[in-house]
C-alpha cells in the first residue's frame, strides 16, 4: 500500500529522519512506536505532504506521491488525524462532517449563484451520510452542537468520523491515545477495528500506549534516531533488546512507597 524508500529529512544539520525505509501492507493496522524524538511525527508529516523530504521517495499503491500537498493526498484516499484534535470549532458537528467530501459542486462559486438546485440535492445526501456516521460513532446527540464545545475525546471521535465521510484507503492516526481517557480510548479502538474490518481501511497508528498497540496493531514498527529499529509483531518487538534499551525500559526502580 505505502512504500517508503530511504527517506531523509534534515532540519539544518539535524537528521530527524535518517534513511527510513518501510512498507505498510494493505488492510493492516500498523503500529508506529519509538522514543520521543525518534522522528515518527516527522516521517508522518513527510508522508502526509506537510513536509518535503530532503531525499527519498514515498509510494502509494505503486504511484510516487513524494511531496504532494495534503489536499491532493486526501483525494487519493490518504487521510490523517492530528495528535491534538483539529476540529472546526465554530461549526456544528454535522457541518464538520459535511464539509469533508471533495468535489462538492457547491464549492464552486459559479454554482452557488447559478446551480442552486444541484447543490440542494447534494446537500441532502451529504446530510444523511453525516448523520449515519455520527450514529456509528455514538455521538448523534451532538450533531447540532458546535464542535468547539464538545469534550476532547468526542473531538477525537469526530476526527475519526471525518475519515469515514469519504472512501479512505489509508488513515494515519497520530497519537490518538495521548491524553485520552482509557475507557474512551477503547471505544476509539473499537471504531478503528470496525473500520478496518468493515470498510477495509488501512491504518497507521502512532501510540505510546502498549496496551492499545497490543489490542489493535499487527505489524509494529519501532523507530529510533530517525531509522527503523525493528519491525514485527508486538511480542517480537517487546522482546527485542534494542527496543527495550531504546524505548520500553525495564519499569520503575523506586516502586516502594514514598513519604512513610
Amino acid at each position, binding site marked *: 500500500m505505502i512504500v517508503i524508500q530511504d527517506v531523509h529529512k534534515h532540519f539544518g544539520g539535524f537528521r530527524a529522519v535518517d534513511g527510513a525505509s518501510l512498507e505498510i501492507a494493505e488492510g493492516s493496522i500498523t503500529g508506529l512506536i519509538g522514543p520521543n524524538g525518534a522522528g515518527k511525527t516527522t516521517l508522518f508529516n513527510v508522508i502526509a505532504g506537510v513536509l518535503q523530504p530532503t531525499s527519498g521517495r514515498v509510494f502509494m499503491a505503486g504511484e510516487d506521491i513524494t511531496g504532494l*500537498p495534503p489536499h491532493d493526498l486526501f483525494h487519493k484516499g490518504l487521510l490523517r488525524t*492530528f495528535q491534538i484534535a483539529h476540529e472546526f470549532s465554530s461549526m456544528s458537528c454535522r457541518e464538520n462532517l459535511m*464539509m469533508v467530501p*471533495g468535489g*462538492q459542486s*457547491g*464549492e464552486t462559486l459559479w454554482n452557488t449563484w447559478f446551480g*442552486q438546485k444541484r*447543490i440542494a440535492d447534494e446537500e441532502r445526501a451529504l446530510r444523511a451520510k453525516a448523520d449515519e456516521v455520527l450514529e456509528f460513532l455514538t455521538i448523534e446527540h451532538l450533531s447540532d452542537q458546535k464542535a468547539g464545545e464538545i469534550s476532547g475525546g468526542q473531538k477525537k471521535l469526530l476526527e475519526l468520523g*471525518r475519515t469515514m465521510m469519504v472512501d479512505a484507503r489509508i488513515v494515519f492516526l497520530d497519537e490518538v491515545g495521548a491524553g485520552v481517557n482509557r475507557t474512551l480510548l477503547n471505544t476509539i479502538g473499537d471504531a478503528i477495528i470496525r473500520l478496518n474490518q468493515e470498510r477495509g481501511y488501512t491504518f497507521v497508528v502512532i501510540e505510546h500506549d502498549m496496551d492499545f498497540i497490543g489490542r489493535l496493531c499487527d505489524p509494529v514498527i519501532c523507530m529510533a534516531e530517525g531509522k527503523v529499529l525493528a519491525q514485527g509483531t508486538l511480542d517480537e518487538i517487546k522482546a527485542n533488546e534494542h527496543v527495550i534499551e531504546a524505548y520500553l525500559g525495564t519499569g520503575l526502580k523506586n516502586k516502594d512507597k514514598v513519604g512513610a
Partner: protein
Amino acid sequence: MNETVKNTLLFAVVGGLILLTGVMQSWNAALLILNMGLVSAVMAIGVNLQWGFAGLFNIGVMGFVALGGLAAVLVSMPPTPEAWSAGGGGIILGLLLGAGTVIAAVVLHKRMRPGPGRALALLAVVVIGFFVFRAVLDPSVDAVEKVDPAITGYLGGLGLPVILSWPIGGLLAAGAAWLIGKTALGLRSDYLAIATLGIAEIIIAVLKNEDWLSRGVKNVVGIPRPLPFEIDLQNDPAFVERAAGFGLDPVTASTLYVKLGYAALFLIVLVVLMWMAQKALHSPWGRMMRAIRDNEVAAEAMGKDVTRRHLQVFVLGSAICGIAGAMMTTMDGQLTPGTYQPLRFTFLVWVMVIVGGSGNNFGAVLGAMLIWFLWVQVEPMGIFLLEVLTSGMSDGGLKSHLLESAAHMRLFTMGLVLILVLRFSPRGLIPEK
C-alpha cells in the same frame, strides 16, 4: 430586541442621518454622501470578503482602488494617435520583454536544480532581461511623453463607454491581486499584510511616475461620464420644463438628477454584489471557507486546497475593490494619483468593515455608510461644536487654535469610533451570526 429589528433599525438610523443632511443642509449634499457611501460599501464588501470570510489581512486596499481608477482612464479616454505612433509599439514590446524576463526566471527557477548554477543563471537572466527591457522601453516612453505634455503626453485609452471600465477595473485589480497572492500567500509564513501594504505603494508609485500610462501626477481630467452633464440638462428645455413640473429650479434639478442617476447605477452594482456574496456565504463554499478559517491545517488535510481558496478570495475581494475604484473615478470624472493615501483608502475602509461587523455583508455596508457620513460631516459638526464651546471665550490664540484644529477632529473621531465599537461591540454593529 430581535436581530432583524435591530439591524433594520441600525440601517434606518444611518438612512435617517442622510435624510437629516438633506433637510438640514441640502439634498445635493445628502445624495453625494449617499453616492460615496455606496462606493465605499462596495469597497467594504471586498475587504469583508477577505477579512471577514477568510481572515486575510489586506492593507493594500488603496492599490486596488487605484487600479480601478486606472481602468476608467484606459477604457474611456480617447486614444492619442500621435503618442501611439511615437512609441506605442516600443512600449508594448518593452513590456512584453519585461514579462518574458520574469517568466523566464520563474521557469528557470522551477526547471533547474537548486544550487549555485541556478542562482547564477537566474541572476544572468534577470540582469540581462532588465537592461534589455530598459533599453527598449525608455526611448519609447520618452517619445510618448514628449507628445504635447501639457494636454496628453500619454497613450490614452480605448475610447469605450466608461461603464465598461467597472468590470475591467475589477479584472485589472484581480490580475494584480493574483500576482501578489501568488507571491505572498505562497510565502512559507503568512506575510500578506506587509506585502499588500508595500505593493499598494508600488502601484501608486507606478501611477504617479509612468506618465505614458496615466499621465502621472499631471492627472487625467474630463473622463467621459455615463450620465449627461448638468449644464446640458440645464440647457435642455424639455428637462427644464419637467423640473418645473416638480417645482424645482433647473440647477437643483439637474444636479439632483445626475446624482440620482449615479445612485441608481451604484445601487445596482451593490445589490448584485451583495446577492452574490450572500449566496456564496450560505452554500457549501461558505462552509468550506468557514472551515478553513477555523482550522487551516485540518482543512488542508480534509482535501481543501487552502492556498488556492485564499488566493481565490483575495483575488475576488481585490476585484471588488477595483470595481469600486473605477466607479469612484467615474463619478469624480478624473484620475488623480496623488489622491490615493493609505489613511483614506485603506485604513478608513478597514474602519468601515470593523465598525459595521466583519464577516457580515450587511454589517460592512452599514459600516461604510455610517463611517463615510462621519468622515464628511464630523468637520462641520466639529466646527459647530467648537464654536459653541468657545463662544464664551475671548477672541485669542487659543480660540482660533481650537477652531483651526476642527479639521483634525475627523481623524480623532474615526479612531474614537473604532475603539468604542471594538470595546463595546467587538464584532461590530451587525455581528456575524
